[in-house]
Structures are given as structure tokens and as C-alpha cells.
């Protein structure tokens, strides 16, 4: 993707409870050793994007710590590379909500960069989109904006409140709004769009000046008659990580080898910050079935249908089922953990039994220790 800037900006974290107490959605640990943002960054880098800007939102710390100077993604460059934009507080923009003000406050970055197009991705949507094809479509149709979508079948209304777009027969976009689950199939916006930088900056300036939109997606619709806006359909598997349950399911889907292979290998290597953990040790007492296990763990107990992150300890006699155990969490002797998400550094004490339901996992907070009563 020559001549294209990458922009990463997340969405609200209201639906994630304790999991997003101190981190934005795109920093959620995922797949045993990654954060959601790793997939977006790697996808961009693997498609040849050389300049990436990340808008961190308010909860900056975990993002700063994880991204550093961008080395794991080879974005530590003297020219271009990684730009991290924390929120612009304390200036005349402060009272304004939404991403328009964020983009406006970094106008200089856009104006000084040489790239003429912008690829915008929200890391909450996880899929191995072939960005080259989308970019080709964008360029060959001379579109001002190409919006990526998936035809989502949704008979049970599970995708309520997701972004919905309406298309004309020629693929141009006629309207966009919220899915209220009135149809069994709808065109779901998958958090990715490509836009000419000039159109992008014009829309932002116009919205700032007129004050008619706070969010880019509204601003695009307000100005839709001025631009050539078309669409690109993604037909593969996509995870729309919009609440705790969707996050849990997306992790569990990785136990499907086809989905895991697509996500981990099909669009090149997924890069993340290295933790220098040794290999995982399984002792004589371990019994592990259908699980994804990262390095640095010591597994002495039973693990089934679970995702085990780096540096986790599962002691003798413990039973882990249908659960996600994040980095450095620990389950002590004979404890039972079912349908649960254990956040980083959490501890389940010996003989404790905890369980969520299959429709809603139980969440153990970061650093929380649950001991036998």
C-alpha cells in the first residue's frame, strides 16, 4: 500500500466492564500473547504501510508501554514510523467530543506527511482483510472514500447497535446508521475505510468550522454528496469485538484451527512485544486438551478449551475449562475455573471454585486475588 498513511483509532469501552478499567479496547489481550492492536499494526506493516498514527484515547499508559518506539513492528524509523497521539487536553478543543477534534488537533502531521491517502482502522474489528485488494479497488475506481463492509447474517439480533451502511446498486454508499436488527442480514461496517487525504482534511475542517459533526462517520454522511463514496465487501471471517461476550467468543474461536491459521499466518507474521519467556513446561500431572498455550507457563493441572497467555501457572489438581487466563495469572492447587476471564496477574487460591455461565463469562479483575472463604 504505497502512498498511504495508517491511522488507528479505537471506539468506546463502555461495554467491557472491569476489562477496560485501565485500558482502551484495542489494548485488550488477545490470542495468548497479543493485544488487539497488534493485529492492526502488523496488518498495516505487512501491507507496506510505513507511517502509522495511533490515537490513544484517555487511558494512555498501557498503550505507551506496549507500543514504545514501535520496534516490534519495525516502525522505529528515522523517517516516518510510529506516531502516538494522546488526547489533546487543555486547549481550545478540549470541550469538543469525538474523533474530529482529535484529527483536527494533529492537522500538522497530516499536512507534513507525503502520503496522499489514508487508511483508517478500528482494531476492534479483527479479520484478515486483504488490504491490497481494497486499496486497488479504491484507486481503480478513483473513489474519494472506500468503506469496507461485510454482509452480516444476524437472525437473532446479536449485532444490534453495530454500524450499518446502505448501498446503491453500483456499490456507492447511500446512508449509514445504527443496526436496529430489523433485517436478518445487513451491511456491517467493519471499522476500516480508505480516504483521500485531501477529502479527509476538507471534511475535518468543514466539520470543525460548521460544528455539524463530532465523529468522522457522521461528517462523511453529511458531506456525502460532495464525494465519490463507494464500498468494498469483505467475505472472510471477522470478529466485531463490541462487548465482553464478543471478546470472549473471539478468543474461543481461535481454538478452531482454520480461524487461528487465518489470523496468525495468512496475512503475514503478527508482531508483538517480546517477553523473553522460556518454553512452557508440562509436568507429569498435566492434562491439556484443545487449548492454545503461550510460552513461559508451568502447567501441572488440567486445562480444556482454554486460551492460556504468557507466564501463567496452573497448579496440580486445578481444573481450567472454557476460560481465558491472561498474562501471569495463577491458579493454585485444586481450584476450579470455568467460563472465566482471568485478567493479568490475578490469582485464584487453592480449592476455590469460580464459574461464569456459557452466555456470560465471569471476569476476575487485574491483580485481583480470590481466596478460599
Amino acid at each position: 500500500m504505497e502512498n498511504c498513511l495508517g491511522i488507528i483509532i479505537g471506539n468506546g469501552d463502555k461495554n467491557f466492564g472491569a476489562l477496560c478499567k485501565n485500558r482502551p479496547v484495542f489494548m485488550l489481550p488477545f490470542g495468548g500473547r497479543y493485544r488487539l492492536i497488534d493485529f492492526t499494526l502488523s496488518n498495516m506493516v505487512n501491507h507496506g504501510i510505513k507511517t502509522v498514527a495511533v490515537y490513544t484515547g484517555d487511558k494512555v499508559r498501557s498503550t505507551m508501554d506496549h507500543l514504545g518506539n514501535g520496534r516490534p513492528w519495525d516502525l522505529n524509523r528515522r523517517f516516518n514510523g510510529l506516531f502516538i497521539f494522546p488526547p489533546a487536553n487543555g486547549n481550545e478543543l478540549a470541550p469538543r467530543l469525538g474523533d474530529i477534534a482529535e484529527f483536527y488537533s494533529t492537522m500538522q502531521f497530516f499536512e507534513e506527511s507525503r502520503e496522499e491517502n489514508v487508511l483508517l482502522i478500528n482494531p476492534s474489528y479483527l479479520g484478515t482483510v486483504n488490504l491490497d485488494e481494497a486499496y486497488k479497488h479504491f484507486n481503480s475506481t478513483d473513489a474519494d472514500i472506500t468503506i469496507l463492509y461485510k454482509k452480516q447474517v444476524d437472525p437473532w439480533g446479536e449485532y444490534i447497535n453495530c454500524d450499518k451502511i446502505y448501498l446503491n446498486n453500483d456499490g456507492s454508499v447511500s446512508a449509514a446508521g445504527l443496526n436496529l436488527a430489523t433485517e436478518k442480514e445487513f451491511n456491517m461496517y467493519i471499522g476500516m475505510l480508505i480516504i483521500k487525504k485531501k477529502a479527509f482534511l476538507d471534511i475535518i475542517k468543514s466539520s470543525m468550522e460548521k460544528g455539524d459533526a463530532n465523529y468522522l462517520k457522521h461528517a462523511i454522511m453529511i458531506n456525502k454528496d460532495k464525494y465519490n463514496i463507494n464500498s468494498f465487501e469483505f467475505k472472510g471471517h471477522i470478529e466485531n469485538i463490541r462487548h465482553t461476550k464478543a471478546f470472549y467468543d473471539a478468543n474461543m474461536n481461535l481454538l478452531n484451527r482454520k480461524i487461528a491459521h487465518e489470523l496468525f499466518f495468512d496475512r503475514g507474521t503478527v508482531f508483538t512485544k517480546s517477553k523473553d519467556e522460556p518454553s512452557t513446561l508440562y509436568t507429569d500431572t498435566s492434562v491439556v486438551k484443545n487449548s492454545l498455550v503461550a510460552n513461559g507457563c508451568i502447567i501441572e493441572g488440567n486445562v480444556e478449551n482454554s486460551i492460556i497467555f504468557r507466564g501463567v501457572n496452573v497448579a496440580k489438581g486445578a481444573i481450567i475449562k472454557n476460560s481465558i487466563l491472561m498474562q501471569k495469572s495463577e491458579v493454585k492447587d485444586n481450584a476450579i475455573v470455568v467460563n472465566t476471564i482471568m485478567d493479568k496477574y490475578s490469582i485464584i487460591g487453592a480449592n476455590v471454585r469460580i464459574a461464569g455461565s456459557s452466555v456470560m463469562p465471569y471476569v476476575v479483575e487485574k491483580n485481583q486475588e480470590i481466596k478460599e472463604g
Partner: protein
Amino acid sequence: MIENKVVAMLLAGGQGSRLKALTRKVAKPAVSFGGKYRIIDFALSNATNSGINDIGILTQYKPYLLNTHIGIGTAWDFDRNNGGLRVLPPFTSEDGGRWYTGTANAIFENIDYLDELNPNYVLILSGDHIYKMDYRKLLKAHQEKGADVTLAVMEVPWEEASRFGIVNVDKDNKIVEFDEKPKKPKNNMASMGIYIFSWKELRKYLVMDNKNKESENDFGKNVLPLMLSEGKKMYAWSFDGYWKDVGTVRSYWEANMDLLDPNNTLNIYDAGWRIFTRSKNLPPHYLGRSSVVKNSLINEGCLVMGEVTNSILFSEVEIEKGAKVNNSVILSNCIIKAGAEVNNAVLVEGVTIKEGEKIGEQGDGNIYLITDKGFTVE
């Protein structure tokens, strides 16, 4: 300013011919070890963890993979603006080109590098050893004795003593005699090939040794005996942790298996003394519904559907359903097909064991080294 400046010189040019196919494509320091490491990672990580800023890596035998692995030293935090890591291969000059003829000659040839850094001390390390050592302790002992050179030594089994340089010391740990590979060792305190020199003294003796046409330019055979004969202050510093120089395929296999022993003293999980290595960025491994894994180390990117017992799987190894792996070391990218059985083996990188094939018997006492071209038995 940094006082007591130490420069480490890491000898990484050895062939390790007794490791047979394991060193077919790489130098001994680049041989894979312990699930995800290469042997040289231990010395490099020790240097990082000991706070060493400058390190020269002396390469010679088949250096490509070693150079790729080390790069500019990023994994060990040696990619510095000021100092850091230098790879020092043999080179040509107005006197013609020449290989490093011995351990001391390799240092002598890079005297310009050391002169430029002008350290107080030079630490000589080998990239062939598996151990964790805080070199600051060795330096401290060296300083306390006001020594010209201090050797790290450790007790080895008597029957192996004649493989090593054996030191005889007085009550103060001052070395009175140095026997390189003696036929009849007087004791079992062996030199580990880890020396710290005061740079001024070392420089003098390197120059002297290089002028001697008879010399093999080796530290153990020539330089240390010469210094001792001239009455230089040579001390021994005892190390009592895990240390292994894997010379043969069997000892390579054993050293890997040591990591599975619950009582092993080389704790690779110690977060206070991490062993660093170049990251391959692979996803977590997957254990399938039919997998059985007992007492084994498994690295990232593996896919296990069969049975793995007392074994070490490196990255991206695939064990198909019904396959069995016992007491074996399986290097990266190997595939064990359905129904195959592998016992007491070392598989080099990228070997595929065919469906139903069987290697070894449990408890047959042999070690099988398997390559894509065949196998050897030890």
C-alpha cells in the same frame, strides 16, 4: 564516568565437530538448545545481566546463521549508540589474510578494537557453554586479589578431568600450577574457559605470544602457562552453579533433558536472570483434543495432536494424531506423522518422520541423531 570498564570478548568461532550433523550448517554457539535458545544466548544473556556494555563476538566457522541470530544485538540490549556489540570476523590486511589460529590469536588480531575502548579489564568468554553466571562476582574476586588474571573454575567429575585445563591452587586460591588437559590430573578443579584479565597485562602477553613462532596462540596451552611461568598473579574463582560444555551428541541430549529434571539447577524461568534470544514472533502452541503431554517443554508455533513424554519441542513442530515422542529433542519445523514413534532421539531442524516409522526403543540406551539424510547412533 564508568570506572572499572570491562570489555567482554566472546569466542564464537568453534566448529564443534563431535556434534556431527548438529553443526553441519552452523557454528557450535548457534546450535539450538532448550526449546527456544541457541547455545550462545546463555553467554550473551549473562553479559547483559551482568551489566556489560561492550562485547566483541569473534566468529569464524560458518558464521551466517550466527550473524543473523545476533544481528546488532537487539535481543540482548546491545544495540547501543555508545559501545554495544561488535561482530569481529577474521580479516585481511597489508600482511595478507589469515584465519584466527587460536583463542589468544583471535583476541590479538582485534587489539585495535580493545585499544580503542581502552578497558581496565578484558573478560574472555566462550559461546559454547550453557550456564548462568554473574560476571560481576568474578570481577570482584579479581579486584580483591589484585590479580593479573582470574580463572573461573569448577569441580568436574574425576573421570572427565583430563578433558579440561586443571588448576592447582594454594590456600589463598592463587594458582601455582596449570595443566592443560593432563593425562593424570592432580585434582578435579577445571578451568571453565572464562578468564578476566587486567588489560595492560593481557596486551603485553598477547604481543609476546604472537611473536613466538612455536606457540599455538591458545590461552590454555600458551598464554596462561607463560604468564604463570613469569610469576604473574593468577587466581582461581570457584563457580558452583550449572555449567555444561556440550561436546558430543549424547551430552547435548543430556543437557536438554536436564531442563526437564525438577531438581535441575539451571532455572530458565528465573525472571531476575532472563535468557534472551531473538524472537521468532510465532503464535502460541496448540494442544489438540487427542494430545497427551507429560514432563515436556513445548515452544511457540507447535501443533500437538499425539503423545509427547519427557521431550523438548522447539518452534513449529507438528506431532500428528497417534504419533508418539519419548525422551527426545525435536528441533524446529520437524513433523512427526501419524502413527510414527520416536524414542531417545535428537532431530535436527526440518526433519519429517514418515507415517508409521519407528525410531529406537524405550530404554535401549542409544541416542539417535536424525537428519533428512539418515541417522547416526551414539
